[in-house]
């Protein structure tokens, strides 16, 4: 999870990722940040997020992003 926080912090520094639950809905993560985020997650956790999983609900909080990584087998 710490690795994910580091990635998020690198892409948009200064956000409260531990408590934010509307990263997409509040426009904190826009298309540009999402592209970078997905690329970074894919390479860091050695997974490939299918586009069908790139939906707002999966990216609204660090927790939901982490759950997605776990589901795709990248957290262990």
């Amino acid at each position, binding site marked *: 999870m710490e690795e994910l926080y580091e990635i998020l912090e690198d892409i948009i520094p*200064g956000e409260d990722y531990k408590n934010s639950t509307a990263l997409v809905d509040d426009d904190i993560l826009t298309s540009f940040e*999402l*592209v970078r985020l997905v690329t970074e997650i894919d390479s860091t956790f050695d997974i490939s997020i299918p586009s069908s999983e790139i939906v*707002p609900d999966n990216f609204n909080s660090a927790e939901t992003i982490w759950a997605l990584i776990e589901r795709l087998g990248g957290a262990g």
Partner: protein
Amino acid sequence: MKFSEVRRLAASIGTGIAALQSPGSPVAVFMEKSVLMAVSLLGVSYGGCSYCPVDVAMPEARMDRILSVLEPAAVLTSGSMGARAREACGDCPVLLVEDLAARPADEALLASLRARIKSSDPLYILFTSGSTGMPKGVVGTHQTVLNNLEWLASRFDLGPDDVLGNQAPLHFVVADHDLYCPLKFGCSSFFIPAGYFSFPAKLIPLLNQHRVTTVFWVPFALGTIASFRALDEILPEFLRYVFFVGEVMPVRQLNYWREHVPSAHYINLYGSTEMYMCCYYEVDREYAETDTLPIGGPCGGTGILVLDEMDREILPGMAETGELCIRGFAVGPGYYRDPEQTARKFIQNPLEPAAREMIYRTGDLVRYGTDGLLEFCGRADYQIKHLGYRIELGEIEAAAGKVPEISSCACVYDQKKQRILFFYDGTETDRKTISSSLSQQLPRYMLPSRYVYLDPLPRNASGKIDRKFLQEQYEKNIKSC
């Protein structure tokens, strides 16, 4: 909305605009992107005025600067935006589009206005980033748009069965295609909600649901779909024309699209607000990822000149790089109420000093490839294309002048990571202090990604900040705050 309804509403709105009795004056259109906004732009034109679509998301300070230059005859807005529009525009009359649309049209009045309009009259004023900190109003004429439509008609078989999937905001010149192609070709435009562009798994089904055949998109929008490999799972079934415009299209992403949707035509459009679309290249072969995709040759009604530093012409076959200059119908009249900038960029053709002919100096550096097609090589100044937006780095630097801790600053662009880097000296301060000040003056897409304190900033022999050195230092992983 059917054409008959568009016509009826635009005529009613036009009648209300004509009542201002300010023919030729600009009217600011302050609305969320919607079909009603598109109809409002047409309505302003029907009423004999030029329209200026204003980005409702821009910070108040920037809007104030734009309205102070524009001095509109009125602000046209819709119910939900009325209060903000009144606050922003001071003494200027505020018209509610719902009120105008409900009134009957005066067809005789509109016909008389139409008869008076010349093709060289302003159709719109679009504001773009300005290097001095003041956004520039670029005037587009009826002729510019008509010429482009004629060229599209001569080259592509758009027709009533086509559906355009609009991506660009209506204050961008690219959106003119989505506004005016329906009037020329009888096709329809579907305005795609902006949120869909982040999530291709939702976007592609939406394109299919609306049977979208044609897109005029910035490469970033196409690139997001390629980056997420969304076409591996679902294809845009009806797509046949993919026009990309506004920045350089990465070949890797283009190849992904061509591999998955091989039946579509891919057209690299080159243009800017000042000259609309003036060059194009229809991709007709494979390109390697290291290749440069050409911008091709001129669209109809447009001429090009490539000039070296001494204003000598560079011709195909010469391996030199020069500045691309545009001539012909694509060249607009210049910047609104800015004779100084206009005189700098819109100049007499130096190759034809005896015959009056204005050309537009694009600031884009190009060269002819061995195939005779033009290739884009970069900028002669500090203008960048970032996420499809055109940005003068000088405007960001000027906005930073309001942060008391900063003595001097410079922005450079990290093309590889697509980041705006902000270097400053003075008193070291935290990122939030700078970014919150900038965000009060600049749209979000202009905010830097990295803030780096470096005191004093390096300067070259002439005393100017050494941007090249800053770029190199950044690449060596300088510590950022």
